[in-house]
Each structure stands twice: as C-alpha cells, then as structure tokens.
C-alpha cells in the first residue's frame, strides 16, 4: 500500500471524470459522474479498510516537493479519514439526486466532480498552502452550482456566499504567510507541534477564526447559509450542508486548537458566547420559517454551534462528540435536504404550507423523513444523539452555563423539526397535487436508504467511527492540557470523609 498513492488517485479520478463530463453529452455525463464517484467511494472503502487504527498518526503519506518548500504533500489521520469517507459517501448520492437538472448537464457534473476532488484535497492536504488552495478553490464550483443551476435569487445568494467567505480567506492567508515565515515550514504535522509565541497566537487565532467561523457558520456570520441553501439545487445543498460546513470544524480541530492552544483557551469565551447565542437564536428563527430549506439551513447553524462548544470543551468527550456531530449532521442534514428535494421535484415549491398529509400517500417517504427528523432531534439510537450527548457532556465539565444553554437546543430542536414534520406529513391533504404525489421511486430509495442505514449504524455502534480517531483526539487533548481553563464545577468532597478516595474523579 505504501507505494500506491491512493489519496492522489482519489483526487485524480473525479478530476479526470470531470473533464470527460465536459466532453460528453448529458446522458454520458451522468453515467461518467456516477461511475467516477462510485470508484472514489470504492477507493474510500479501501482506504478505511487499510487504515491502521491505533497505528501511526499520519498514514498514506505522499510527498512530492514542487518548488521552494511548497510541496504536493498528502496524508491522513483518523479525523481526516472520517471526513473523506463522508465526502465520498455523499457524492454518488448527489449525482443520483441531480436527475432534475436538465441544462448544461456536462458542466454541472464536472463542477460536482471538481468539488469532490477539492474536498478530498482539503482533508488530505499536509502542506499549509496546498490546504489553502483546496480550501478556497472549493468555493468556486459551489459558486457555479448555486449561480448557474440555482433558483430565482441565485445571483444574490452566491454573491453573499462569496463576500462572506472572501473576507475570512484573506485574513487566513496573511496569517499563514506569517506562520510559515516564523516556523520555517509549511508542513502541517510539524506546525501542529510548533509553539508559537502566545502574543502572536492571538492574532493568528483570530485570523483563522474569521475564516472558519464563516464556513461553520457561526452566528452572526451565518446569513449567507440560508440564502445559499434556498437557491442551490438539491445536490448543491447536500454537499454544502454535508461536507462544506464541516471544513470550518475541521479547520478548528486541525489548526486553531493544536497550533494555537493558548489563544484557543483565551478565546474560548468568544466561542461559547457566539455558540450559545446561535443555539437559541437560530433555533427560534428556524421555528418561524415557512420555507423548508431555510428551516433546515437555520437548524444547521444551531447544530454547528454544538460542534464549536464541544471542540472548545478541550476534553476527549467534547472533541470526539464534535466530530461525531459533524459526521452525523453531514448525513442527516444531507438526508433532510434530499427529502426536501424529493417532494420539491414533484410539486416545485419549498413552501411548507403547500404540503400536508403526505403520510397518507407517501408512507415510506414519511417513515424515512421521520427517521431523519428524529436523528436531527438527537434521538438515542440515531447518530444525532451520540455526538450531541458527548459534546454536551464535554462542555459540561468546562462550564455548566454553556452546557445548560446549549442543551436547551434539544427542546427547541424538537419543536422546530416536529413542527415542520407535522405540517408536511401530518394533517389533512390540503391540495390535490400534493395528495397525488407518488411514494419513493427506486432511485430515491437508493439515495435515502444508505444514509438511513449509516445514521442507525452510527447511533447503535458508533465505535466504528470513534475508534479511528481516538489516538488523534488524545494527541490534541494532550496538546491542550497545559493551557485549558479549569472547569466551573469546583467539585469538593465533604470534609468529614477521607479525601484521597474520590478526589481524582473531580479533577478531570
């Protein structure tokens, strides 16, 4: 395996496929795109199978020096592995979900395949600049997907998306230049061990934060997300919610936390504050939406806030929980957008009020939609619970206030999701067109059933997903141990009792 550059191949397959799509006609483009994404998925399965859990931190490393220190350097740890798996898993589903696209199909498929290559690149890059290029270039196909194949307001949406992300990118680039200058290397694993001057860390942290907070997105730089989702075609929303939002979280866990541990501890309050606001604020906003996609988009912001509080809990549960929330949200929000797409393709409206009583004529659709709704709500047994529970358990050890406010998300989340479900699936059939819609067709089963299986797998036996990242999380936790602030629980044993016995428990 050492000599087979599997990561480069996984990048190359969609790129070559994308080029081929541009040359072929619509039918061919669809077939090529499906083929290429399935090959990448198969490679992804191989990658996971060959990944040595508990082995070396960085595996499948490739290094091809290009010029003056800049090199084609790839490699993954458990964290990157899981996010790559998420990407290659969702991609074939996106291609299947793009049946309704009928203009410029070749270019559309090419954009998606390019996007896949860039996403894998983001998670696999081990060179700082290489990462930057993948990270920023990933936006271009997304602009195109929204701007060309989007809805009526697509120009405004992609413009907003662009403006927000640009601001963060520029600051991050400047910070990267400074870091390379200071540390004398562009190697990410080396930088993760490098101790920057605490004063400099603050500025670097803020610069990265500007970029990741937008990508995440955190309140108040989240307003591009609802517009982008609403205007994007279904598959665009799936990738946006499923993978692109995870780049922010990935950025925090790969860069901000291990590279700037001091600054991360110093600015934890900022993360906590924004996240707490996000949970309550965006959940309430989600409650009053009348557009299905907007509602789910706002719910994403609330869920991502659980990720950020978990990450900045600085402990194993928080970090691992956040990773699982990201993976779970990648699956669940993708599935929810697909569910919206299924009925949008039939009725061509996203207005919730045009639906109702779908459980009558689309029972299997209603069943799967219920499963994903419950996963979004965080019902135990689904993937949503494991991540949410661990993240919140993590942050509780740091601050009961943050834990309390963030946990109210389980009430608000239930309220807006069930309210959505009720208006779509329950009630009388209000309009004849909606009542005449047929249940899931085989193609749609192929899209939704694998995600449903993954959601349950991650909920019942999350160990498959936790095991690859245990050692990486431990390394980050160790890196943070020196600087992390003390928790607010201040547990104290009773004075009358021997102190030694249970003292250790309070200390973690």
């Amino acid at each position, binding site marked *: 395996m050492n000599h087979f550059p599997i990561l480069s191949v996984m990048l190359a397959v969609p790129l070559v496929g994308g080029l081929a799509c541009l040359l072929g006609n619509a039918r061919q483009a669809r077939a090529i795109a499906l083929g290429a994404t399935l090959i990448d998925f198969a490679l992804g399965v191989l990658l996971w199978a060959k990944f040595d859990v508990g082995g070396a931190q960085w595996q499948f490393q490739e290094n091809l020096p290009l*010029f*003056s*220190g800049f090199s084609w350097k790839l490699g993954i740890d458990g964290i990157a592995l899981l996010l790559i798996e998420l990407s290659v898993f969702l991609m074939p589903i996106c291609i299947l979900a793009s049946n309704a696209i009928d203009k410029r199909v070749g270019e559309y498929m090419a954009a998606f395949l390019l996007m896949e290559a860039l996403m894998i690149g983001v998670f696999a890059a081990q060179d700082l*600049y290489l990462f*930057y*290029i993948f990270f920023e270039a990933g936006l271009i196909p997304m*602009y195109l997907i929204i*701007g060309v194949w989007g809805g009526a307001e697509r*120009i*405004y949406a*992609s*413009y*907003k998306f662009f*403006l927000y992300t640009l601001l963060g990118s520029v600051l991050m*680039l400047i910070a990267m*230049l400074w870091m390379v200058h200071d540390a004398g290397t562009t190697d990410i694993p080396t930088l993760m061990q490098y101790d920057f001057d605490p004063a400099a860390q603050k500025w670097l942290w803020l610069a990265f934060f500007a970029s990741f907070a937008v990508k995440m997105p955190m309140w*108040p*730089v989240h*307003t*591009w997300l609802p517009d982008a989702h609403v205007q994007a075609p279904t598959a665009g929303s799936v990738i946006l919610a499923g993978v692109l939002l995870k780049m922010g979280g990935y950025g925090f866990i790969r860069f901000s936390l291990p590279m700037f541990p001091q600054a991360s501890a110093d600015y934890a309050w900022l993360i906590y504050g924004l996240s707490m606001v996000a949970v309550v604020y965006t959940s*309430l*906003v989600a*409650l*009053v939406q009348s557009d299905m996609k907007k509602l789910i988009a706002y719910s994403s912001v609330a869920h991502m806030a659980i990720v950020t509080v978990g990450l900045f809990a600085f402990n*194993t*549960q928080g970090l691992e929980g956040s990773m699982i929330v990201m993976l779970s949200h990648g699956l669940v929000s993708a599935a929810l957008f697909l569910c919206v797409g299924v009925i949008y393709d039939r009725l061509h409206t996203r207005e919730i009020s045009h639906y109702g009583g779908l459980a009558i004529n689309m029972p299997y659709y209603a069943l799967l939609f*219920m499963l994903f709704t*419950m996963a979004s709500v965080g019902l*135990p047994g689904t993937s949503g*619970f494991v991540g949410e*529970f*661990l993240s*919140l358990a993590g942050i*509780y050890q740091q601050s*009961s*206030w943050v*834990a*309390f406010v963030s*946990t*109210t998300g389980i*009430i608000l989340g*239930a309220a807006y999701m*069930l309210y959505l479900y*009720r208006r779509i699936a*329950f*009630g009388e059939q209000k309009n004849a067109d909606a009542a005449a819609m047929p249940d899931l067709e085989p193609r749609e089963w192929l899209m939704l059933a694998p995600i449903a299986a993954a959601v349950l797998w991650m909920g019942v036996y*999350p*160990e498959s997903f*936790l095991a690859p990242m245990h050692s990486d999380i431990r390394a980050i936790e160790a890196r943070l141990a020196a600087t992390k602030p003390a928790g607010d*629980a201040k*547990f*104290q044993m*009773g*004075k*009358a*009792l021997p102190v030694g*016995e249970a003292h250790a*428990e*309070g200390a*973690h």
Partner: protein
Amino acid sequence: MDPILFIVFLPLLAAIIGGLGNRMLGNTVVKALTTGALFIAAGLSWPMFFTYLTGSAEPHVVPVLHWVQSGSLSFDWALRVDTLTAVMLVVVTTVSAVVHLYSWGYMDEDPDQPRFFAYLSLFTFAMLMLVTADNLVQMFFGWEGVGLASYLLIGFWFKKPSAAAAAIKAFVVNRVGDLGFMLGIFGTYLVFNTVSIPEILVRAPSMAGSTIHFLGGEWHTMTILCILLFIGAMGKSAQLGLHTWLPDAMEGPTPVSALIHAATMVTAGVFMVCRLSPMFAVSPDAMQVVTYVGAATLFFAATIGTTQWDIKRVIAYSTCSQLGYMFVAAGVGAPGAAMFHLFTHAFFKALLFLGAGSVIHAMHHEQDMRYYGALRKQIPLTFWAMLAGTLAITGVGIVDVFGFAGFYSKDSILEAAYASASVSGRFGFWMGITAALLTSFYSWRLMFLTFYGKPRWAQSEHIQHAVHGDHHGHAAHDDGTAGYHPHESPLTMLIPLGVLSLGAVLAGFAFSHYFISDGSGEFWRGSVAFSEELIHHMHGVPDWVKWAPFAVMLTGFAIAWYAYIRNPAFPAVVVGQIGVLYKFLYNKWYFDELYDFLFVRPAFWLGNKFWKLGDVGFIDRFGPNGSAWAVALGSRVAARLQTGYLYSYALVMLLGLTGAISWVIWQAAH
C-alpha cells in the same frame, strides 16, 4: 440464551417486520406477529418474576453490544435483571400483551392497523430497554424511545389537527424534562466518572457532604444531581408543571392511553427514582423536593379530575394524581411502596382505560359522560370490569381482611408518609388523604354518570350520526336513547378486561407481603433503597391513620352517590355557588393558557424578531448588502457582479491569491 434477550428483542423484531411489511403482510399477519411476540414475552416474564419472588434468582447483567467509549466515558448496550426490573417486566409485558389483544377489537375498523401494532410493539421494546438499563445512558435511550412511540401513537390519527398538535406537545414538554435528565447525567459523570448505575449507587453514600457548582451557585452534590434527574422524571411522569401534555395525549387511541399513558411509560419517572433511590437517599433535600412535587401533583390533578366531562380525561388526571402518590412514597424513603403502587396501578388503571374504551366503543366514539347514563344493563361485562377497577383505585378494603389492589398499595403510601415523621411527609399524608376523598368522588362520579341514571344519549352528535346512519331514527324515542342500542364489545376486548380485573382484585392481596412487609428487603435485594425501619414505623402508626383512607373513601362515595344518583340537580347548585373556583378547576388551573402566554407565543415572536430584525434588518443590511452598496457607489464592479460576472471574478480573485503565494514563496527562497 438468556430469556431476557427474547423478552426485550422479540417486540423489536415484530415491530420492524410488521412496520416495514405493513400492507404487504396484511392486517392479520402483522397483528398476530406483534401480539404473539408480546404474549411470548409476557409468558417468559412471569416465571422470571416468580424466581425473584421465591428468592431463587440473583441480579445479573446480560451484555449485548458495545456502545460508546470516549475517554473515560463508556457505556454499553446491556440488559440488567434484578427484582426491580422483574417487577417492571411483568407489568410492561402483561399490560402490553393484553392491550395488543384488545386492539384487535378496538382498532378493527381502522384502515391503518399494521402501523398501529408496529408502534405498540416498538413502544414495548423501548420500555423494556428502559427498565433493563444498566447505565444512565441506556435508560435515556429507553426514555426517548418511549417518548418517540408515545409521539407516534398520540399522533396516530394524524389527520386530526388536535392529535398532531398533542403529539408535538407531548414530545416537546418531555424534552424540557429531558434537559434536566441530560444535565443530571453529565453531572453524574463529572462527579462519579462513570454512568454505570450500580457503580454510582455504591459510591453515592460517600458523596454526602460534598459540594459542586452549578450555574454559578454552590450545591450539595447529590442534591443538585438528584433534582436534575428528577426534573426528567417529572416530565415523563407528568408531574405538576410538566404535566400539561398528559391530558392532551388522550387524543391517541384508547389502548394507547391504557398502555402508555397509564400503566407503563408515565411510570418511568417513578421507576427511575426508585432505581436511583440509594442516590436520592443521600440527599434529604432532594427527597423533600420529590415529596412536595408528588404531593402537590396528586392534589392538583385530583381537583381537576372532579370537574372534567370527557371520560378519558378524568382517568388521565386520575393517572397524574396516582403518579403523585408514587412520588410521595419514593420521597419519604419508601420505594417499595412506590413500586407496589406502580404495580397495582398498572393493572387497575389499564383496566379503567380499556373499560372506558369499551364504553366509547359501545357509544359510537362519544367520550362525553354527559351523554352517557344507564349503560349498566346494556354493557354489563364492561360495567363489572369498570367496577373492579373503581373498587381498586378508590382503595376499598378492610384492614387485615381483604382489599382490592389499590387498598394495599395506596394505604401503604399514606402510612409511610405519616410514619416518616417529617414535615414533607406529613404534607404528603394530608394531601394524600384529601386527594383520596377526591379520587373516590371522581371515580364514582364516572361510574354513576356512565352506568346509572337515565340514558342521555339523544343529545350526543356521535349517537345521532350512528342512529341516522342506521336509518332507525324515524321513530320517536322520548326515553333519551334516540333509539340507539349500545352493544357489548367483542371477546378480544373482553378477555383483556377480564385479565386486568383479576389483577385489580387480587394483585394487592397476593403480593403485598412481598413488596412491603417486614423482610421485604429479601425480595428487593438491594435493587431499591428499602428501609426495614420505615416498614417497622408503618406498623406503628395510630389506628386512625390506618382507617382514615377508608373513611374518606366512603365519604367520597357518599357525596358522589348523593350528587349523581340521589339528587342530580345538586352539582349544578354547587357549581353556581362556587362559580369561580369551578371555572378554575374546569380549565385545569389555566396551565395551558399560562404556558402559551409565557413560552409558546414569545418563542414565535422572538423567532420572527430575530429573523426579520436581526438577520435581515441588521446583519444583512450592514454586512453583505451594506458592502455591496458601498462598492456600487464607487464603481461599476458591483453592477457587473450582479449581472453574472461573479464567477469569473471569483476565479480571478483566487488565481490572484495563488499567484501572490507563489510570489511570496519564490521571494523567500531566493
């Protein structure tokens, strides 16, 4: 393989096959499958229960699957069986089995039966996971699982807006409790470094006197943990403040009300407090909270029960009230009595609900007792079953001779409350005595309005529909029957009534010795914090304490008899005299209105404000739109941006940045 695996997973298997097979398998197959699975589960549970009765079984844990391991936070799927679990197993599987059977008759005309039976079995699975939990997280899994099933079953007739709304309300209100439960689990993990229940219980006593900070305040560790966990219990067991979902849950089909909202799910909170009773025992403050909340609930719910007209709502408030009794028992340190009442209540309350269902079935979906009357002769078997249930809930019995089920369990709670000799215990006792009078009154009121007096069926819209539908309505009927002939329910519904009647009559007499007597510690074997000392004190209470429940029971019966048989004009007179109080009770203490005003409306109002003023009016206006406007002022770039040149612009921007990096690197290298 351990039988517990079959008990727990057969219902799940049946639910999955039945739910996915649905119309492919057909009504009968799915019904037989799910009902069969439950009867097997019940058949396996009783022998297991008897091994614990005879003391020949040891507590054991059957591992199933690894679940989560994150740092030191680790929990598995595992099934724990001990005395406490065994009690719950027979309750859950028995009531579930008979409710499955009952639903054959009750849901016979429903077009969507496979879904209904699959939900029932799914519920049973989740409930069994809850009661066999060996760690707090699996308990939470069962907790949420029953919540899901409850949501699905309340909303089973999802076309009805009221049913869909009630389903959401049940889920969301329960989630408020879950907030406490989750924080409680987090705190427990923080303090004990484990979520394993046996480990926590062993180490809980050593935490006495320790303190912890929570939301800025300093608390006794066990007090705050127990209160947080208890908030979860309050949600599931519909205690005062978080009870509002339970009456609305009556929107679900009646078998659901019997199984979930009377016998099993709503008792999960009581089960949790009993399971964790060694933990609660460490904190007298938390115990007092439990007692006060229980006492307040049992009184408050009983007052509302006296005024409702909907037969199911009366029983629903009665359930709420009886759960309050159980919490009082748990709060005064008598978890044995709490579990005993849970056990007997499961039988007689399920019986009352299924009986009510039989009445509703006979009366063509009419649920308003104002349109009942004189049904004793029409549906005699239902009458006798309901009578058994009423005798059980009102606690009819003679000390040291024989009593119906509730006589033993409710009286033991009152004795324990009195014997605990604490202020909270005395409060619980007096509230309990008062509510016992109210219980007797509303229970007999229900019986008299339904089965005695003259028929008042003619005013009922449901009956009128039925009669006109049958084309029998032409003849004049001035006897109040409108020519309607109620029919006794089919055998599938009567057999469950019979089985449960047996429980309502005998469960107390047969089992009180095991649950609550000297030496019951042998039976419980440490699965609850059983106090022999309290049992001893209970025997020593004054005689008037032992007879007081009997006296108030008779008083309640007498008032009901006078008001609804002897002098039927009397209630109207009383209502006229106490108009304001009556309205207050009839409108359920205005909790729904209050919550709507405090939480629901502000949530939507705030959501709109955050969206329209926050996102659109502020962030967008001064963020992206503002910068776009600024750019447009200065150049034509913005205009070009908005006409679709954005993409080339973006590309140029990125290429520029890439070029810049290359240049910097190149510079650095040379």
